[in-house]
């Protein structure tokens, strides 16, 4: 009799244990594929997850590895799993797939280049964009050389509105953004570049394929005209442009953790956030060629310096 009681007690403990485990809420992190930046964002989330803040919640990670069939299986599992309270997606593939299928659970995306190109504008979709606000980028120039007052940029028609807004905002820090239209023909671009360099103190090099194709020419012309070029990526700084400010992915992870907290506590202020963490790079040789002498603290605050 005692033996049966003991077995019954054990079974009861196991049952309670299983019930407790299954009652755990789940937050899923779904990555499109292997990517070091996705790992940094995951670190940011995991390290920020305050044990006392969000209880009875576990984080599970999936890597779709670019496999569409596996992705569909994962999505089917998610739809059948009632414990999932929130999904974080990294990369365009995972974000788009999840956003199309999951309509009743909050989804937070990140690591998506130009997220506006995808169908991510839904009530249950939140996210952190992948692009540093241009104002922050251009502000670095001001930090390196307080005298800079006119910054030139090439704009496509669809970007006009965006740059006009930035122009108004940059006035607050004494910078005039001079917006040039891309010429109708690519063959006229070099002349436009020379014109821009003649009328501006600095140039903001955007991720436009026409400009990337003219990297060599822009680099040589900028060197000749002593024009500082601010790039969108540290690789271009390594190649010779003056400086860049790019996204700090760890901080995006921390921002995602903040958004999770806001959603779970019904305190969401907006759906799409801009990245708050920056990672700045500087080419020292270009700085010397330009004869710029930034204050000591500016050099101390730049994370990556190419000598």
């Amino acid at each position, binding site marked *: 009799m005692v033996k049966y009681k003991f077995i019954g007690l054990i079974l009861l403990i196991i049952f309670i244990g299983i019930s407790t485990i299954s009652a755990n809420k789940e937050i899923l992190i779904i990555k499109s594929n292997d990517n070091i930046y996705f790992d940094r964002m995951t670190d940011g989330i995991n*390290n920020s997850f*305050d044990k006392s803040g969000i209880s009875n919640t576990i984080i599970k990670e999936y890597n779709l590895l670019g496999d569409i069939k596996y992705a569909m299986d994962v999505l089917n599992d998610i739809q059948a799993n009632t414990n999932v309270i929130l999904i974080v997606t990294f990369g365009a593939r995972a974000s788009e797939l999840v956003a199309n299928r999951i309509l009743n659970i909050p989804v937070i995306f990140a690591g998506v280049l130009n997220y506006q190109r995808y169908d991510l504008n839904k009530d249950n979709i939140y996210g952190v964009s992948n692009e540093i606000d241009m104002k922050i980028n251009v*502000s670095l120039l001001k930090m390196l050389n307080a005298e800079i007052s006119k910054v030139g940029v090439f704009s496509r028609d669809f970007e006009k509105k965006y740059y006009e807004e930035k122009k108004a905002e940059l006035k607050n820090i004494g910078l005039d953004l001079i917006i040039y239209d891309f010429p109708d023909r690519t063959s006229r671009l070099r002349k436009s570049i020379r014109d821009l360099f003649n009328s501006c103190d600095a140039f903001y090099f955007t991720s436009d394929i026409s400009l990337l194709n003219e990297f060599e020419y822009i680099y040589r012309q900028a060197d000749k005209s002593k024009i500082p070029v601010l790039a969108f990526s540290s690789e271009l700084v390594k190649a010779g442009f003056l400086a860049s400010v790019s996204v700090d992915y760890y901080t995006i992870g921390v921002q995602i953790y903040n958004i999770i907290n*806001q959603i779970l506590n019904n*305190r969401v202020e907006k759906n799409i956030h801009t990245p708050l963490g920056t990672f700045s790079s500087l080419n020292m040789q270009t700085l010397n060629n330009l004869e710029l002498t930034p204050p000591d603290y500016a050099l101390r*605050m730049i*994370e990556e310096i190419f000598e």
Partner: protein
Amino acid sequence: MKSKIIIITLIILILLVNSVLFTWSIYYYNPDSNITNYNLLTRIFNDYCRLYEEDINLQTFINIDTLFNQAGIEQPDFMLIPYFNYVLKKNELLAATGNSTLKSSNVLTPILKSGKQTYKKIVLVLNTSSYNVILDVAGNIGSVSYGIESQNFIKEYIFSEVDINFDNINFVWVRKDIDNLYALMFNQVNAIIVSDKVYNELKDDNNFLVQNVKVIYESADIPEVVVTLTNDEIDSKILAKTKEMFLNMHLTKEGQELLNLLGYKKWLSISL
């Protein structure tokens, strides 16, 4: 010939073992520092170590949780961390094991360029903001993170003297003050908490990032970072050498360059 090879091999082995035995490590984390260019810090630090013909591995971290996780895997010999994180970690270890590898008697702390051993955290808002006192502030506030205990740091060290309703505040954690300043300048947050060391340096240069802001709160004094021993089994010579290197840093040109980079005048030995 054979014996020569054996002797040479033995010498190489002895040299290798020696180099392993006498290389030691310092983990570094300080979100309130004026320096985020860790390559520069490591280079200047190595230049200084060369004076002593020592090869010390200064490993820098951008967040304290990663530092402590890593410390659990490869125990560093020393840590240079914020005072708050030192106290927390020490108490955590004491509570868990009744013993702490963070030794109170082997602690160094710097004197800042200001002559003090402390700094303050200040709360900034834009000049155009309607917030004039700290009690008005609500919504998003930017702050550098001190790990998962960040809110405790803020409550204990920054707002200990004011009765703030934290339910009305959403902290936006960043890893350096320059990101905080960008976030404020471009209206991503309502207010920011920054180190007065960073603010004063920018203010002295009339930098555009602090031209349109106002200080609405100043914390009480916060102790500066500490260098603490973390490895119980360290060779006593290494311990003595490390102390000597820090305490004599102000006596050489290379040491002064390192101190200048860190924003300090000299190091002191203290007991906590």
